């Protein structure tokens, strides 16, 4: 197993840092899956993390100037590491103005991702900051947990409203309630609702548009769904808030798929990054 990569460009470094920061806001621990073409951050929906799962995909060539990977074997040429994204994010923070950053899989006292940043120096002596981030190498027999989640058989798919607006609404609703109902239909309408002993609040978003795949997806046993019909899911408001707070990548497209009373599937797309986040519905 071998992995080494290098980022020279400050733009790429900032972009990579933003992605890692976003992941940090979403989860304390996740799996870093490295393949020849892609880097993935994966969280599989375990009960321990409230059933939330995450899938973040980066095209390696868009971030790294050098990228060498030798997987566990020739036929499964990839590496899976369990890592605390916060450590990675902290290491990248010190590397903000670095001339270059090298990331390497090393064996110290334990397996580590070693991040070395060469910082600008006024003298001829170079200044290199090195971080050893402990990781767990995940054996091959557990890899099946970290495969790309299949697109759920959703009832409604809709574009999200401006995330900033959504964030302030969800932040306020969080003060009032622990659970929130997300509902949407195929005519571009989405509602966020809470209801408690003291207050009921509903925010109505309109004209959001539905992504084109919703048209040809034949759902509900061949019967097309009435456009006005709402699919809804009641979710833990903190999970949604986490997703909206962590958001640092400024996506070109933001979408939400709802499987009625089962799951909310959020997707953020940027040219070279995609982030999917699954929040299970609660009764």
């Amino acid at each position, binding site marked *: 197993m071998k992995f080494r990569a290098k980022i020279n460009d400050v733009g790429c470094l900032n972009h990579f840092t933003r992605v890692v920061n976003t992941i940090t806001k979403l989860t304390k621990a996740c799996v870093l899956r490295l393949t020849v073409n892609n880097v993935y951050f994966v969280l599989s929906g375990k009960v321990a993390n409230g059933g939330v799962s995450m899938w973040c995909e980066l095209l390696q060539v868009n971030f790294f100037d050098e990228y060498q990977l030798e997987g566990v074997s020739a036929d499964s040429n990839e590496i899976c590491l369990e890592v605390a994204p916060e450590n990675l994010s902290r290491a990248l923070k010190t590397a903000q103005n670095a001339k270059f950053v090298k990331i390497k899989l090393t064996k110290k006292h334990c397996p580590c991702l070693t991040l070395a940043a060469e910082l600008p120096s006024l003298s001829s002596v170079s200044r290199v900051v090195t971080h050893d981030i402990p990781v767990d190498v995940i054996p091959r027999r557990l890899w099946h947990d970290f495969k790309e989640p299949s697109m759920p058989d959703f009832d409604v798919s809709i574009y999200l409203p401006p995330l900033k*607006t959504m964030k*302030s609404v969800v932040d*306020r609703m969080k*003060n009032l309630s622990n659970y929130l109902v997300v509902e949407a239909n195929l005519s571009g309408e989405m509602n966020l609702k809470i209801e408690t002993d*003291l*207050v*009921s*609040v509903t*925010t109505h*978003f309109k004209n959001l548009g539905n992504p084109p795949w919703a048209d040809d997806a034949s759902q509900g046993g061949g019967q097309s769904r009435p456009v006005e019909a709402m699919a809804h899911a009641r979710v833990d408001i903190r999970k949604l808030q986490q997703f909206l707070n962590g958001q640092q990548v400024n996506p070109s497209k933001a979408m939400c798929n709802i499987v009625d009373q089962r799951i909310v599937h959020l997707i953020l797309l940027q040219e070279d990054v995609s982030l999917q986040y699954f929040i299970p519905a609660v009764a």
Partner: protein
Amino acid sequence: MPLSTQSQSESDEYILVASLDNARNLSNILKAISFKDHAIFNATQNGLKVTVEDSKCLQANAFIQADIFQEFTIRQDVIGFQVNLTVLLDCLTIFGGSTVPGVSTALRMCYIGYGYPLTLFLEEAGVVTVCKINTQEPEEPLDFDFCSTNVTNKVILQSDSLKEAFSELDMTSEVLQLTMSPSHPYFRLSTFGNSGNAHYDYPKDSDMMELFQCTKTQKNRYKMSLLKPSTKALGLSCKVSVRTDSRGFLSLQYLVRNDDGQICFVEYYCCPDEEVDEE
């Protein structure tokens, strides 16, 4: 938009309808009195009065006159109800309470009557939020019986001068002592904290002093914990009138200018700290 397409019959049901182009004109002034959850609302032809109380020793009132609202329709002489103020403030600022010019939340507040919720319609950039806040039986607000004819001492100050003093007050002191006198030290704030005593004196001919009417030397102590919430109102205001009556009760009246330059008032009443016999 529900704001404009409210059917006539639905509007008729309401005994109170109040609309604002900028919800901040209401939320800001309510923040100035938000130190307890329960707020008593009292609406008359003149406008809205919101009262919050603590420990039967402190009362804060915010007055929002009818002409501050773009629409203010009331179909009874007096309407009273009580709501949770923290909840109301979260609802009013649901879109973040943006201070960016040109972006504001429009508000329409409706009430059908006793037993019904207070309904808020909020709209910003085409997004509409409907809030139904459950109302409670209104409690009778305390009557501090603070009568202008019994006022012993009165000063009006620019708020900035008092803000500075309040931000530097020694919060380890349990009380704030207020001395008002026709002779030296005229107007003095004193604290008695862990690290010693401190006095703030304002000369009566200071630029910050707009009015100085003290007839008798008075020295009264007020619990710091009770006065603390009033700093919220101080921060928003441009002028403050400080008055004490013959019983030593304190009245603080704040003049608050909103985003549109209109004037509202916030008023705090506070009981003096009971005197303990010296041993």
